[in-house]
């Protein structure tokens, strides 16, 4: 054999050996690989065991690797979460945190997460939206941390808003709240109307913020303002919302109706109150014609300065800050026939049921939901702290623009309906029936009477799903 070729073969064999040998080292690297499951050789106490049972002092402390994930909306949020992770990393002794920014909502965050859970490669701690908690809990995908929470000094469910905690402490077997703990809320959010102050001034309509301050901000005055702005031109709209359950849910709730009956075991979309709310919203589109066509994304035209009032949550604030080239502010949603209403949106940090380190994961969940950590996240403007803490709320008010941050907090205080899962059925199935039917009404393709006659026949099937 040619010596050169022989040496090349030797080199190739060496390289391949190195590749396989190093690959076989798996987690032997200095830095943990992102995909590798958390591991330690130390015996972990079971979730039910009391926390004070710690390894004997003479035993060497094994490093625990915890992977955690949340759904950021942009690079700025990823950077903040990474810095939070770094700080907690330094603070949590014996634990190495690996932060994995999940995809955004449009990148199918939940679909990817479910697939990873099925494959057994999901992180130890992750965020899920409030509507998913029941599905994850009843399928045994997330850990019930009640025993650990009870053994934790200083922990109390009451430190967080009661709406999310009702669902996060719900025991599906007894159908009682307060008996389990599936996670802690990362943040909360409410709706507000984002106002284009330039269009408002040009239209000569009364300022909704003043109307709200005087207690005169209701559906009638809302309509007056929307009509005045809409009259400014064919390409100007008085109002805009996006097509999902939150925005139309407000109109239904504010009229005294709701998606479900009181114990959330049956459809209530065909009650007189629900229908009244939906009918008013339908008139906004089909009779008064003052809104961005239903189904169109209202955010681009709002940011382009063509929408007077845009209904959205706190998560739209960073976009307005960076892209709106006009004067803007926010105001709370108008009072409906049944009084003030809003949504309390939330998502929670939960613990993978298959984590090898439940104690450390529980500790991480607590650290991620301290007032201090939530303050850092809230400074970005995308969300409101989930802790009932005056300190956190005072800090939130300083994160401007918008000047009227109080509008979001007012939403929290004024009869919000809590976003939540369906413990007695399937929320995705329910939404899949409700969404198209409501869209048909708001687009003028179906009458309110036809909607009322059929909606609950179809939607109630979601409660009989396995």
């Amino acid at each position, binding site marked *: 054999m040619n010596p050169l070729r022989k040496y090349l073969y030797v*080199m190739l064999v*060496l390289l391949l*050996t190195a590749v396989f040998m190093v690959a076989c*080292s798996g987690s*032997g690297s200095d830095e943990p*690989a992102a995909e590798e499951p958390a591991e330690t050789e130390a015996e972990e106490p079971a979730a039910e065991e009391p926390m004070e049972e710690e390894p004997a002092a003479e035993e060497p402390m094994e490093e625990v690797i915890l992977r955690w994930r949340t759904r950021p909306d942009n690079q700025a949020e990823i950077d903040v979460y990474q810095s939070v992770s770094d700080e907690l990393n330094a603070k949590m002794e014996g634990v190495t945190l690996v932060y994995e920014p999940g995809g955004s909502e449009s990148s199918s965050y939940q679909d990817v997460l479910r697939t990873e859970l099925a494959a057994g490669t999901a992180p130890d701690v992750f965020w899920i939206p409030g509507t998913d908690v029941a599905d994850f809990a009843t399928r045994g995908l997330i850990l019930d941390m009640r025993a650990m929470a009870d053994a934790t000094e200083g922990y109390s469910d009451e430190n967080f808003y009661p709406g999310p905690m009702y669902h996060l402490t719900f025991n599906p077997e007894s159908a009682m709240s307060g008996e389990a703990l599936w996670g802690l809320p990362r943040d909360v959010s409410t709706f507000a109307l984002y106002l284009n102050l330039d269009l408002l001034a040009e239209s000569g309509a009364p300022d909704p913020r003043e109307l709200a301050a005087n207690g005169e901000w209701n559906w009638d005055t809302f309509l007056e303002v929307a009509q005045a702005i809409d009259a400014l031109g064919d390409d100007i709209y008085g109002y805009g919302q996006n097509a999902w359950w939150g925005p139309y849910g407000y109109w239904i709730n504010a009229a005294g109706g709701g998606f479900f009956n009181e114990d959330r075991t049956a459809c209530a979309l065909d009650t007189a109150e629900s229908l009244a709310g939906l009918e008013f919203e339908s008139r906004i589109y089909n009779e008064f014609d003052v809104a961005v066509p239903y189904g*169109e994304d209202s955010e681009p035209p709002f940011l382009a300065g063509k929408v007077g009032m845009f209904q959205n949550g706190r998560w739209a604030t960073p976009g307005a800050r960076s892209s709106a080239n006009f004067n803007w502010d926010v105001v709370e949603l108008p009072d409906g026939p049944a009084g003030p209403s809003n949504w309390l949106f939330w998502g929670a940090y939960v613990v993978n049921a298959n984590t090898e380190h439940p104690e450390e994961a529980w500790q991480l969940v607590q650290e991620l939901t301290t007032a201090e950590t939530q303050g850092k996240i809230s400074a970005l403007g995308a969300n409101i702290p989930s802790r009932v803490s005056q300190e956190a709320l005072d800090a939130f008010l300083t994160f401007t623009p918008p000047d009227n941050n109080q509008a979001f907090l007012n939403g929290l205080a004024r009869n919000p309906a809590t976003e939540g899962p369906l413990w007695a059925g399937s929320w995705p*199935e329910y939404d899949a029936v409700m969404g198209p039917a409501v869209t048909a009404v708001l687009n003028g393709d179906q009458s309110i009477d036809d909607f009322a006659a059929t909606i609950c026949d179809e939607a109630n099937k979601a409660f009989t799903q396995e």
Partner: protein
Amino acid sequence: MAAAIASEKGTPEQQVRRWIQTAVGWHTLLAIGGMAGLAWVWLAGNGETAVTFKLLATVLLLGGTAVSAIAAFDLYRLRHRGRFLSLALNYLLFLLCFFAVIHRADGFIGFNTLANNFGRALPFLFLAFIGLLIGNLGAAPGPTRQLAGRIVMALGGVAFLILAGLATAVRALFVALTDPLTLLLAVTLIPSALFIWAIWRQPAASLLGAKNADNEMLIGWAFLSPNLLGFLIFIAGPLLFSLYVSFTNWDAFGNADWVGLRNYGRALNLTLAPLADAAQRANEVLDITVYDELTRLTFLGRSYVIGAEDKLFWLALGNTLKFVLLAVPLSVVPALLLANLLNSKVPGMKFFRAVYFLPSVAAVVGIALVWQLFFNASIGYINYFISQITTFLGIADPQIRWLSESSTALLAVVIMAAWQWIGFNTVLFLAGLQSIPRELYEAATVDGAGSGRQFTHITIPLLAPTTFFVLVTTTIQSMQIFEHIFIVMGTNPAGPGNSTLTLVLYLYQKGFQRFEQGYASSIAWILFAIIFAATLFQVQRQRMSGSGYDV
């Protein structure tokens, strides 16, 4: 001395016989091990082990045991079938153990670690390469230079391996081998490799009566095996698994209960009920606990309502068929015309060919996001241009709500998809056109045929095979439409009034968003049956028309 050693080892034939006898023992051991494994799966296995896994393990272990027993018997009787079975079994066993060891040693995820370390170790690989050059460049390198080159190579290689993480790797590998199962798998590698080597060799082949054809067959299988195994594991395996899942209510997380044909029944279950009058509500004549109103029809003056157990399945099927009916002509006919234009010999035509092909190579996600902006009813470019034209003509602006109205949403997706597919179809037609002999056109011209008659009497008939291929592939592509809709429709892929809900989108939602993998699999198999039937129909039509043409 040499003769003494030879007599101690025996003659070459005796040595081969010993190898074969040992192989008989090895296969007997494997057969016993297989039976023991079977007993462990059913008797000692974890009570929570899925029945699916147990059944799969049973099939594999029983098959392996049977093959091993037959191989042992045939080898004992010196039959060639024993050689074939032994080689096949040891080959599969070797691969299985090899990949299992890598997996259990975290080897696959360890490639990430390698990627992290490789960069810092790479310079030393170059150092080793320099050593190679030092020792070998030139017509006759002296012994000193060769020695220096080898030292540099050795140092570079060792440094590379150390920096790449060899020490950590060796430690991790030894730690992994402390696990009894991993150790057993690693130890099994050795005899399986040894028996492949021993039974493959010519002396063993001769003793077992191998003919040239037998050896060629074995070599053929050996070359085929990577592709065959890949197909079986990554394509046929998942397909069969999906078929099995479609008869269960598997949710991807827990055990699956066998539900037979219930999933198929749920998807396909329809009912027809007569109405007293056209305005009568469906819930007065349908069992609303099972059925939802799908559609109404009037026949011989009588109105009927059709109810479906899963209305969304039928809506999705209808939307899929609508999409096919619109997208296939829109992406095939313009492509044919475009290919004719691009087939002309005009300067710069290659540039235009590339331009029209560009959308085909662009990522669907990027394209869909751009089209999403184009289609925006308020600030989109399409409506802007329509508005400019209508203003110029002095007619009313239709203000089309492309993505937010049920009557236009699917059409918008069709336009986007057809725009992307035209380029690829054009290239196929172009290749077909260039294979048509120019003489036919010249003869037709001499005979007085115009370009129109040439197109209809020469181009279209002789393009029939290409057209058939384009139609079949575009139809299949259309039936499987997913990405375009999933991206362009944003947070509501099903679209207004479920107008863009197609079968693949629906099975995705069922399987990955609503925890119904079993039902999603049944939809996938129904879609497969529809595509298969449509393709079969097209093939039959093609055969009936014939691909040749008497010009």
